[in-house]
């Protein structure tokens, strides 16, 4: 069989690895399409031929269920993202919290809190630290985490509050310095998956969701910086 999975951009790379692995094991063909969660939502509402949604949040799948476009029973939290304060400058981030309090950087890149769960988490963290208002002039907003990452990666922003998955990737490439934000500082960034109604009887799709719950998949996901 064959299935198309719609994946939030930030998880696209991992999803492709998983899809390949799953295809090798099951013989089913999986096609991965990536876009922002908002776009995927709009597309699904207008008849996009997707079978599974791997969302960047846990609210969009629920919304789809409520609208009858997805199957409630299939809801599954496939990953929990972690927030990292990353800088390309190797010396900059030692004590992240202190750095955020001091504000000794030119710009802080985050994803747009209205659009991206990681952005919302960053806002929550800064609010808790009492720095949200004070840091406003230094904030630059990416449309998604990818863009926020590019702001920091190109060193146009000294620091960024980013997904650990991307920060690991960046560190691999250019080093830099980072601080893993403690999970208590923000509500967990839960990313959930859901089977879309049109794929109710799609063995390949149902099988992929099954596979996602398995140890092999979980190991891959964890290796890429998700809890």
């Amino acid at each position, binding site marked *: 069989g064959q299935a*198309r999975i*719609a994946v939030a*951009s*930030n998880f*696209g*790379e991992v999803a492709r690895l998983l899809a390949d692995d799953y295809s090798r094991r099951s013989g089913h063909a999986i*096609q*991965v*399409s*990536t*876009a922002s969660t908002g*776009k995927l939502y*709009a*597309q699904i*509402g*207008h*008849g*996009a*031929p*997707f079978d599974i949604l791997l969302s960047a949040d846990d609210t969009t799948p629920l919304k789809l269920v409520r609208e009858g476009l997805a199957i409630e029973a299939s809801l599954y939290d496939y990953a929990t993202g972690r927030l990292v304060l990353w800088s390309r400058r190797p010396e900059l981030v030692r004590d992240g919290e202190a750095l955020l309090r001091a504000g000794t950087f030119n710009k802080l890149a985050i994803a747009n809190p209205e659009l991206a769960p990681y952005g919302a988490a960053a806002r929550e963290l800064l609010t808790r630290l009492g720095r949200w208002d004070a840091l406003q002039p230094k904030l630059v907003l990416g449309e*998604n985490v*990818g*863009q926020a*990452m*590019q702001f920091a*990666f190109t060193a146009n922003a000294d620091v960024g509050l980013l997904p650990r998955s*991307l920060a690991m*990737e*960046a560190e691999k*490439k250019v080093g830099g310095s980072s601080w893993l934000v403690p999970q208590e500082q923000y509500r967990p960034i839960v990313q959930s998956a859901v089977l879309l109604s049109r794929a109710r009887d799609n063995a390949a799709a149902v099988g992929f969701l099954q596979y996602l719950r398995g140890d092999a998949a979980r190991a891959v996901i964890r290796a890429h910086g998700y809890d």
Partner: protein
Amino acid sequence: MSPLWPAILVTARLAGLTTLILLVLGMPLAWWLARTRSAWRVPIGAVVALPMVLPPTVLGFYLLLGMGPHGPLGQLTGALGLGTLAFTFEGLLLASVLYSLPFVVHPLQAGFAGIDAAVLDAAATLRASPLDRFVSVVLPLSRPALVTATLLGFAHTVGEFGVVLMVGGNIEGETRVLSVLLYDQVEAMAYGDAHLLAGGLLLFSFLALLLMQRMGRRTVLAHE
């Protein structure tokens, strides 16, 4: 690099077909806009340019609305037994054409407007019908405008990605074009791949643009 080939094929097909359709549609429209004295000239000229002022994704969103099962276009295609156009190559083509239309129509219009009526009159007295005059006089004389239109139409379709992403749904082999692939690579921090792809795209496009400009000139010299 396995996802590259399907994307190249889709891109080439999309850009080629879009440019072709744009020229075929754009030429009569531009000719009309350039020559008519109708009061509709100005508003219609503005309407053609209008899709440009919307951000591509937003335009894509509205196209999606229109093409979806509940949208007017979707209902039409549905009634015709064609299903919906969204997420198909045809839908992508339609969206691209709509979005790149002004880049073709307006330069052509400006070019056509400059053609000396006396020369067209002369051609008419030499038995050339209106269509014949258009092909044998107007087109060769508006070569710079034609090259511009082709060039802008083509390049814009290659680079366009907001509408494509929205209407096409990034489906490999069908609607995933190079621009979307490149976007994905950058998002995924696959910068190495992205540099390579961007470099290749630029080089290829540069050569294509060069060729286009030169061919435009050749064709005309060989004409008649």
